C-alpha cells in the first residue's frame, strides 16, 4: 500500500512538472495564504502580548486610584486655592473598612526642580513608602531605597532615578551628596537602575516616565512641602491642594478584585461630589484586552482565511484546466484498468502536493516574520522618521510572536484546502465516460 502511495506521489510530481510555471503560481497562492495566517497571528499575538504585559505590569490584583484635576467648570471652591483629589482620610477609610485589601501604597508626586552645584533637572518628585519600589518594579543600582525608619523619622533622604543621577552627577558618585529641592536639602542614599517608561492604559492612567524622578519619604514631603503647591501660570498665581496623588491597593485574591473595586468606588463616591479621582482596575483592562485580542485574532484569521480560500480557488481553477487538458490520459488510464477512485486519488494527490508545498514554504517564510518585521520597522525608522514617530508606541515596540498552534493550523488548513478544492476537479475527471475520454483530442 505504501508503494502505491509513493508511486502516486511520484506520478503527481511528474504530472505537475509538465507545467512548472503553472504549478509554481498555484503554489504561490497557497504559500501567501499560509504565510499570512502565520504572520497575521504572530503580529496579533505580539501586539496583544505587549498590551497584556503593560497591564500586568500594573499588577492584576491591584486597584489604582489617582487624583485628577477636575475640569474648571466643575470647580466649586472659589478664590485661589484649588482643592481636589484623594485624601489621607480616604486612605484610612479604605484600608480600615475593606478587609480584602492586603496592602495599600500611597504616593504624592509633583513637578519640581532638582539642583546640585550648577546643574538643574526638572522632574517628578515622588513622596512614597518603601513598597513603592516593588509596585513599580524599581531596581537599585547603588545604595538603598526609602525605608520605614526614614518615614518615621521624617528623614531628608532621597533616591535618584537613573536619568536624574546622570544629569546631576555626570562625573561623580551621587551617594552621600546633597541635592536641593525647593530651597531644601536632601541627602542621596540610593540610585535606581534605568527603567523603561510605562505606557498609558485606560483614561485615568497616563503614561509614566521614570527617568527624571526623585523619591523621598512621603512623610517628609508632607512635612517639608505640604499639600499646597503654588504654580505661576499666565502671570497669575495658582494654588492647588492635593493630599495624595495615587493610592495603589493590593487585593488578596484575583476573584475579589472586581467586587473590591466596586466597594472602593462606592466609598469614594460618597465623599467626593466632583469626579476628582479615577479608579483603574488592571484586571478589568486585562479582561478587556483578552476580548480585544480574541476579536483581533478572529479578524486576522478571517483575512488570512480569505487569502487561503482565494488560493484554493486558484488550485481548483488550475486543476479543472488540467483535467480538461488531460482528458485523454484519463481515458487511457480508465481503459487500462483504473477505477474511478484511482483517478480521484491521482488528481487529489496532485492538489495536495501543490497545497502542501505551499504550506511548507509558507510556514518557513512565516518563521521569518519576527526578523522581517524588525527589518521593516528599522527601515521605516531610517527612511521615514516622521511616519515612525507617528506610529503608536505599542506598534513600535511590539515584537511578533509566532503562535505555536498556528503552524499545524496553517499546514492543516493548506492540506484541507487542497483536498476540498481538489475534490471537485478530481470527481469530474473520475466521472468522465472512458470511451468519450479516449476519443478526446
Amino acid at each position, binding site marked *: 500500500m505504501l508503494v502505491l502511495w509513493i*508511486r502516486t506521489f511520484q506520478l503527481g510530481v511528474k504530472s505537475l512538472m*509538465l507545467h512548472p510555471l503553472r504549478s509554481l503560481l498555484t503554489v504561490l497562492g497557497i504559500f501567501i495564504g499560509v504565510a499570512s495566517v502565520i504572520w497575521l497571528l504572530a503580529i496579533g499575538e505580539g501586539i496583544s502580548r505587549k498590551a497584556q504585559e503593560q497591564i500586568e505590569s500594573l499588577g492584576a490584583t491591584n486597584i489604582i486610584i489617582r487624583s485628577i484635576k477636575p475640569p474648571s467648570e466643575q470647580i466649586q471652591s472659589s478664590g485661589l486655592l484649588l482643592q481636589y483629589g484623594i485624601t489621607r482620610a480616604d486612605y484610612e477609610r479604605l484600608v480600615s473598612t475593606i478587609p480584602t485589601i492586603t496592602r495599600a501604597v500611597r504616593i504624592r508626586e509633583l513637578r519640581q526642580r532638582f539642583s546640585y552645584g550648577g546643574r538643574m533637572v526638572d522632574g517628578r518628585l515622588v513622596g512614597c513608602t518603601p513598597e513603592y519600589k516593588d509596585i513599580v518594579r524599581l531596581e537599585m543600582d547603588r545604595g538603598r531605597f526609602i525605608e520605614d525608619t526614614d518615614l518615621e523619622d521624617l528623614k531628608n533622604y532621597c533616591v535618584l532615578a537613573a536619568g536624574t543621577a546622570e544629569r546631576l552627577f555626570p562625573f561623580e558618585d551621587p551617594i552621600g551628596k546633597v541635592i536641593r529641592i525647593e530651597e531644601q536639602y536632601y541627602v542621596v542614599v540610593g540610585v535606581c537602575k534605568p527603567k523603561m517608561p510605562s505606557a498609558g492604559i485606560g483614561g485615568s492612567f497616563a503614561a509614566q516616565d521614570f527617568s527624571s524622578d526623585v523619591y523621598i519619604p512621603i512623610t517628609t514631603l508632607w512635612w517639608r512641602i505640604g499639600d499646597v503647591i503654588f504654580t505661576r501660570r499666565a502671570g497669575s498665581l495658582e494654588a492647588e491642594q492635593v493630599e495624595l496623588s495615587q493610592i495603589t491597593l493590593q487585593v488578596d485574591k484575583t476573584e475579589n478584585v472586581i467586587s473590591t473595586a466596586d466597594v472602593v468606588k462606592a466609598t469614594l463616591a460618597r465623599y467626593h461630589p466632583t469626579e476628582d479621582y479615577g479608579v483603574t482596575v488592571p484586571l478589568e483592562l486585562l479582561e478587556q484586552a483578552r476580548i480585544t485580542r480574541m476579536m483581533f485574532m478572529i479578524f486576522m484569521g478571517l483575512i488570512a482565511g480569505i487569502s487561503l480560500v482565494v488560493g484554493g480557488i486558484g488550485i481548483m481553477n488550475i486543476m479543472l484546466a488540467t483535467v480538461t487538458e488531460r482528458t485523454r490520459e484519463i481515458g487511457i488510464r*480508465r481503459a487500462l484498468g483504473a477505477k*474511478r477512485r484511482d483517478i480521484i486519488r491521482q488528481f487529489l494527490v496532485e492538489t495536495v502536493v501543490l497545497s502542501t508545498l505551499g504550506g511548507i514554504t509558507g510556514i518557513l517564510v512565516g518563521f521569518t516574520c519576527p526578523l522581517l518585521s524588525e527589518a521593516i520597522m528599522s527601515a521605516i525608522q531610517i527612511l521615514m522618521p516622521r511616519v515612525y514617530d507617528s506610529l503608536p508606541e505599542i506598534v513600535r515596540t511590539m515584537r511578533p510572536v509566532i503562535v505555536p498552534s498556528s503552524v499545524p493550523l496553517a499546514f492543516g488548513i493548506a492540506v484541507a484546502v487542497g483536498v476540498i478544492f481538489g475534490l471537485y476537479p478530481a470527481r469530474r475527471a473520475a466521472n468522465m465516460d472512458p470511451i468519450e475520454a479516449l476519443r478526446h483530442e
Partner: protein
Amino acid sequence: MNIGVSVQNVTKDYHMGTEVVHALRGVSFDVPEGDYVAIMGASGSGKSTLLNLLGCLDHPTSGKILLDGENVAEASDDRLAELRASKIGFVFQSFNLIPQLTVLENIEVPLYYQRRLSPKERARCKELAAMVGLGARLNHRPTQLSGGQQQRVAIARALVNDPIFILADEPTGNLDSVTTEEIMNLFDELNRQGKTIILVTHELDVGSRAKRIIRLRDGKIESITDNPARSSARTEAAVN
C-alpha cells in the same frame, strides 16, 4: 480448446435525443484461446461499439459477453475496470501512451492498477520492452520515439498483465507501410507464441493477416470467414 471470449446475441442501443440508434442488432461469435480474429466493416457498421463492449468499456443493452466465463453485461463499473486491468490488453490507433511517463513507466501502468508493484514485476516490464525491441530506450519519453516505436511500447503494455486477449483498434492506422509491416509481424509473432488477438480494422491488407475475419454490416455479422492465406502460412510454418 478453451473459449476465451464468447459473444452471445449482443445488442447495443444508443439514445440520441428521442431517436434510438441500434448500433448492434444481435451479434454472436466465439474467440477461442490462441485465435487471431480481425473484425472488419465500414464506418457505422457497429465495429467501434463491438470494440468498446469487448474492451469492457461499456455494457451491452442485451445479450451476454463472457470473458473467461464471466458475464461482462452484469459487471459493475469497478468490476469492469478490474477486468480491463487483468484480462485485456489494449492497443490503440493513436498509441495512447502517457506523455509524462517513460517507456518503462508506460508499460507498468496496467500493473499499477492491479497493485502489482514489486521489483519482480518491474523486471518483467524490462523484458517485455526488450522483446518489442526497446530495451535500450527504457527511460525515453513517448515524444522522443517514432510512431512505430510508440506502438511497440503500447504492445508491450498490452502484454504486461498477461491478458486473455489483445484488443487492437486500428493499430497501424497512424503508421507508414514499412512500420505497419513491422507491427503486423510482431502481432503474428505474438499469435505464434499463443496470444489471442482481436484486431479491429477497416484495412483489408491488415485484416488479412488474421486467421479469421468477422465482417460487420449495419450492426449485424455479415460473414465469418477463415483466412486461406493465413491457413497456408500456418501450414508452411508447421512444415518448416
